[in-house]
């Protein structure tokens, strides 16, 4: 069986596969494959099991939690727990707030990062280097150093307990600027020069030449930003204090504080309601997300 699979091999590497073919006759190599693959597969089960349990318990009834063995597949698909979630808290409001905040942050970052990235990559202006170094240095300072002053500034702007508090400070990103700068630097000068000769201004070059080319890095940035904004918890914890302004992560904590919710099927139902959009998002954008993480990893390496 192994040979059949290997025979297909990777067309790009014929020589290498010949060697592998020879090796696979060797039982030791085969054993090594199994001992390597088996723990990896078992490990991946550990990744999935908690999620499976969340789903199965979300359909369960309170008495089932004390039944042994705990059912991996629920005895019946009851939606009672889901009803209770919507009864106890305005779950849709949390969801909507999360959508609003995340969408605004993502769009704002796409605009601000591509603008700044373009300027740092293609334009010359005094102080460019020192400003850019300052930006990079800011990535190394933990946000807790700025926490209290930012809290005061946000209050001063009248954004306390307002969704704006979760949007305005995140409207720009040094990481995103860096990502786009790196990309814009790879665009050949000829494209820009041709446009300049045609009398295009910098704004036009940015809009008509740079932006249309920047699809892939913008998509990567959008997905990374979306993910981190959607999961942001610390900021809402500090700036939001009424339940109608909460986003999902803080709303989950609020729900847990309600009577009879702690560690119950209701909490699991809410967790599943959280997981479904995230997993759909993940499955759709998996390739880009993986690319983004890889890219940011390679940048540093």
């Amino acid at each position, binding site marked *: 069986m192994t040979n059949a*699979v290997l025979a297909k091999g990777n067309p790009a590497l014929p*020589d*290498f596969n010949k060697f592998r073919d020879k090796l696979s006759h060797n039982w030791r190599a085969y054993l090594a*494959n199994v001992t*390597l*693959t088996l723990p*990896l597969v078992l*490990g991946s089960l550990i*990744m*999935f099991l908690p999620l499976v349990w969340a789903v199965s*318990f979300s359909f369960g009834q309170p008495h089932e939690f004390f039944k*042994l*063995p*705990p059912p991996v597949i629920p005895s019946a698909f009851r939606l009672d727990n889901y009803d209770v979630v919507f009864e106890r808290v305005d779950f849709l409001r949390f969801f909507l707030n999360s959508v609003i905040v995340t969408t605004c942050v993502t769009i704002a970052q796409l605009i*601000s990062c591509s*603008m*700044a990235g*373009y*300027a740092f990559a293609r*334009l*010359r*202006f*005094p102080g*460019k*280097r020192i400003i850019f170094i*300052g*930006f990079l240095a*800011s990535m190394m300072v933990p946000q*807790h*150093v*700025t*926490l*209290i002053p*930012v*809290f005061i*500034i946000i209050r001063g702007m009248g954004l306390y307990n307002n969704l704006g508090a979760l949007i305005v400070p995140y*409207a*720009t990103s*040094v990481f995103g600027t860096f990502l786009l700068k790196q990309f814009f630097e790879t665009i050949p000068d000829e494209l820009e020069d041709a446009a300049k000769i045609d009398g295009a201004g*910098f704004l036009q070059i940015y809009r008509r030449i740079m932006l249309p080319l920047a699809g892939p890095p913008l998509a990567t940035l959008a997905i990374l930003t979306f*993910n981190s904004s*959607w*999961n942001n*918890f*610390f900021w809402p914890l500090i700036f939001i204090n009424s339940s109608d302004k909460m986003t999902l*992560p803080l709303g*989950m*904590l609020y729900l847990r504080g309600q009577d009879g919710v702690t*560690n119950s099927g209701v909490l*699991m139902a809410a967790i599943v309601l*959280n997981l479904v959009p*995230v*997993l759909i998002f993940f499955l759709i954008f998996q390739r880009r*997300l*993986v690319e983004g*993480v*890889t890219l940011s*990893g390679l940048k*540093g*390496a």
Partner: protein
Amino acid sequence: MAPLRAGLRWKKPKPLVVREAIAGYFFILPTLLSFLVFFLIPTISGLGMSFFDWDFFSEPEYVGLDNFLELADDKLFITTLKNTALFAISATALNVGLGMFIAIGINSIKWRWLKAFLRTAYFIPFVISTVVVALLFGFLLQESTGVVNYYLTRLGFDKVPWLSSSLWAFRSIVLIDVWKHVGFFTLIFLAGLQAIPRELYEAALVDGAGRLVRLRRITIPLLTPSLFFSLVIALIGAFQVFESMFVLTNGGPGDATRTVVMLLYREAFGSFNMGYAASMAVVLFLVILALTITQVRLGDRWVFYR
């Protein structure tokens, strides 16, 4: 330097140069404003605040280094600093170590579908919010009625006090962190593995090098840049850990899982000791900075740059 000098030729103002500079400032304006308002000014005033005693409502009072001296005597702060350091070291070691070996394992699998499946499986927890992860594990790891303990007893083990004993609560937090983040590091190492030239392995095969030799002589040395990067960002992230403890144990039992950021949060927004909290942030920053600089210094010795 070249672009800077070109931009500075103000004496003979060429219209294009000036226009370019204006355009440059225009394009970076949003990011620059945000940098000033939400980073530079707050950082400077945050550093300044650590020299004051301030309860948010009355006038701040200058106290010099008193906050820092007080921190050095604050047993709770020392405990949280120890907790944070221990968490950071164990979580970093496990995340990066496991991530590296999972990546090497996945990379050596021949079936493409299995490769893709495993990569997805390990990465999924990364996209789930920490709050949801913590709530979920809080449910699964309950001592008497939790699912995990049920299966452990079925396998003949004793029930584990996952969240109720100090030692285990700490371990649980580390394990949950690994569950959530190991896939991220796996991806970084997978990217590093892709960058290793195939020819090296072919040459090694011709020379008759076995699996372990290839791993030790080719894969691991060429992965050191990824390893270095992972160690640096893992440690920086782990020192700022807050959410999982805040949701799952609230620092308990006792103060066994209380971290610096948790204490900082409580001091600032619970007790309104703003200056004191700011001084904690400064210490945390200095610790992270010192560790990062050390890592970069040491990195020159063991990281293999091509």
